[in-house]
C-alpha cells in the first residue's frame, strides 16, 4: 500500500547550535542515524511536535551533505518556540521533501551567481551556496551579499567568515543595518549595498529575505540592468499539507508548496499580488 503523504516519519535532533539570539540550527537524522531523505537546494520539509503543531522549514544543509540535514530556525511562532527550548536527543516528526527547489542543474549551470539574503533569509540560500561550493566546476563566479540587523544576527557567521570567504572566486559582502561597537564592516541596508558592490548584470540573482527587502532589492537590481528572468526568489505562506491540497498557500493558480517555493521574478509578475 502506498504511504499516506500526511503521515510523517520520525527524526532525531542530534545537534543544536545557537546562531543568533533568536536563530538556532538543528541537525536532524532519521531513527536509523542516516539522513532522513534526499533533497535539492531550496526544498523544504515539515517538522512537527505532536500536540504543538507542524510547520514548514527550508532545508539549510546542502544535498551534498550525506550524513544529516540541518534547519536554521528563527523563533517566531508556537512551533519554533517549542523547537528553541528542546535539547539534543529530542525526537520530532519530519516529512518531505516538498517544493521545486532551485534549478541548480538547469538554469543555474555555468552561470555566475549572485546570492542576496537578509536575516533568516540566508537559510534556504545556505543550502545552495554550499552545494555550489561542492560542485564548484559547474558554476561561475559567486557573489554573496548578506545583511542583518546587527552582527549578532548574522546567521552562520562562523561558516561565512572561515569558509565562504576563502573559497576561490567567491566574493562575500556583509552588512548590518545599524552600527555596533563590535562591527568594523559595512553598515547599511541590503538593497542599497547591492548597488554599491558593483554587480555584473549578466549573472543570475537569487533573493531571499523579508518582503520589504525583496521589494527594494528587486527594484535596484532591475535598475542595474538585471532582467526579471535572471532573478529568482522564494516565497513563504501558510501551509498545512505541502502537497497542494489544503488550499492555503496558493498565489493565483500556483501553489507555493508544490509549484514553489522558488519562483523566477517574471513568473511572479504574472501572479496576482497576494503574497
Amino acid at each position, binding site marked *: 500500500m502506498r504511504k*499516506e503523504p500526511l503521515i*510523517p516519519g520520525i527524526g532525531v535532533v542530534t545537534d543544536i547550535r545557537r546562531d543568533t539570539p533568536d536563530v538556532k540550527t538543528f541537525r536532524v537524522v532519521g531513527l536509523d542515524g542516516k539522513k532522513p531523505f534526499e533533497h535539492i537546494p531550496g526544498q523544504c520539509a515539515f517538522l512537527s511536535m505532536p500536540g504543538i503543531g507542524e510547520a514548514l522549514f527550508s532545508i539549510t544543509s546542502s544535498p551534498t551533505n550525506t550524513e544529516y540535514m540541518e534547519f536554521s530556525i528563527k523563533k517566531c511562532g508556537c512551533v519554533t518556540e517549542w523547537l528553541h527550548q528542546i535539547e539534543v536527543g529530542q525526537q520530532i516528526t519530519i516529512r518531505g521533501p516538498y517544493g521545486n527547489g532551485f534549478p541548480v542543474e538547469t538554469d543555474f549551470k555555468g552561470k555566475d551567481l549572485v546570492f542576496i539574503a537578509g536575516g533568516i533569509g540566508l537559510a534556504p540560500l545556505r543550502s545552495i551556496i554550499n552545494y555550489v561550493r561542492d560542485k564548484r566546476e559547474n558554476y561561475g563566479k559567486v557573489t554573496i551579499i548578506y545583511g542583518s540587523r546587527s552582527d549578532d544576527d548574522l546567521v552562520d557567521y562562523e561558516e561565512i567568515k572561515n569558509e565562504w570567504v576563502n573559497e576561490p572566486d567567491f566574493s562575500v559582502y556583509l552588512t548590518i543595518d545599524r552600527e555596533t561597537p563590535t562591527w568594523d564592516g559595512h553598515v547599511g541596508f541590503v538593497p542599497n549595498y547591492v548597488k554599491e558592490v558593483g554587480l555584473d548584470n549578466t549573472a543570475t540573482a537569487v533573493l531571499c529575505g523579508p518582503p520589504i527587502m525583496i521589494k527594494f532589492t528587486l527594484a535596484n537590481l532591475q535598475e542595474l540592468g538585471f532582467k526579471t528572468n535572471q532573478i529568482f526568489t522564494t516565497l*513563504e505562506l501558510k501551509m498545512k499539507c505541502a*502537497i497542494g491540497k489544503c*488550499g492555503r498557500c496558493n498565489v493565483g*493558480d500556483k501553489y507555493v508548496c508544490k509549484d514553489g517555493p522558488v519562483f523566477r521574478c517574471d513568473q511572479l509578475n504574472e501572479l496576482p499580488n497576494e503574497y
Partner: protein
Amino acid sequence: MMKISLKNLPELYSFIAKKNDLYLPIFKAGQVDFAKWDKDAIVDLNKLKTTKSAKDVFFPQSQDLVRFEVDGKKISIDEPIMPTNKQVIFGVKACDNRSFELLDMAFVEDYPDTFYEMRRANTTIVTLACAKPDEACFCKAYGIDAADPKGDVSTWIVDGYLHWMPNTDKGIELTTEVKDFFELDMDNSAVENQQSEIRAIIDRLPYSNIDLSKFTPDKLLELFNSPKWKALSEACLGCGTCTFVCPTCQCYDVKDFKTKTGVQRFKCWDSCMFADFTKCAHGNTRPSQMQRYRQRFMHKLVYFPSNHDGVYSCVGCGRCVQKCPQMLNIVKVIKTLGEDK
C-alpha cells in the same frame, strides 16, 4: 434495465447493508443528509438536495490521520486505521456524482490522499435522476445531465418504481448481488419519458444558460483585479456555510488533539472564508474578507481550471445559492464579473 417497487426498498437496503456500509439521504431533525443507514433510519429519496453534499462519504468532515505517543524525548507513531469497509452510496444526484470526479483531480493527482483513494475504490455509487430540479440548479451550465446521472449504477424513480441500470463493472457486481430483489424491465419508455421531462424543465431553469465564457485562465489577472469584488463580498459574514455544503470544496486543516495518552492528528474540513485560514506567525496573506471571498470563487472558476484543463470546480448544485445566510453565491459572481466583455 431492472426495476423494484419503492415499497420493497427497505429490504434491498438491509440486504446491501449486510455486506456494505450503506449511505442514504436520511431525514433527521428536519434536515436530509447522507448518513449511514440502519433499520430505524428515515430514508428520503425525494429530497432534491441534501443539506450537505455527498462528499462526506469520501472526504469526511474529520478524518483521523495518525496517533502519536510521546514519552519523554521519544515519539512513536501508531499505524493509521485505513477505511477498508466496502461502501455503497445510494441516491447521489448527477451533480454530486460529478463532484467526485473533481475531488479525484484534487486528491488523487500528485501525492494521492490514501484515505480518499481507498474509500473511492471501496465504494459503489448508485445515482438517482432529479425528478424535480429547482430554481437554483445550474448543472446544465457545466454539461451535467441530471436526467442521466451516471455513476456505477443509475436509477430513476417513476410511478412507484425504482428503475436500475448498471454502468460500470462495480455497478454490475452490485447488480449481480441484488438482482433477486428486482424484476426485469424491458420497456425503457417510462424512464425515457421522465428523462425528457427533466430535460425540458432544466431547459427553462433561470440559471441553466448562465454564461461562463469569461472565466478562462488567461483572464486570471483581469478577473483578480476587478473592482467588483468589493461590492460582491460586502455582505459576506465570513462563515463557512458555502464551503461546507459545497460538493467540490476540498480545503482542509491538519490539527492535533491531545487525548488521554497520546496525540491524535486529524484532518478536518476548513474554509477559505474563515478569517484565520491563512493566518500564521508572520501575518496573514488574505487579511480582508474581500480577499477570502475572491479566493474562493477565483479558485473555483479560474485557478482550478487553469490547473486541470479548463474544468471548473463547480457542479451547479445550487446549494450555496440556497444556503448562504446573506444570499451571496457563485451565480451572482459569475453574472456580475461575466457581464463585462
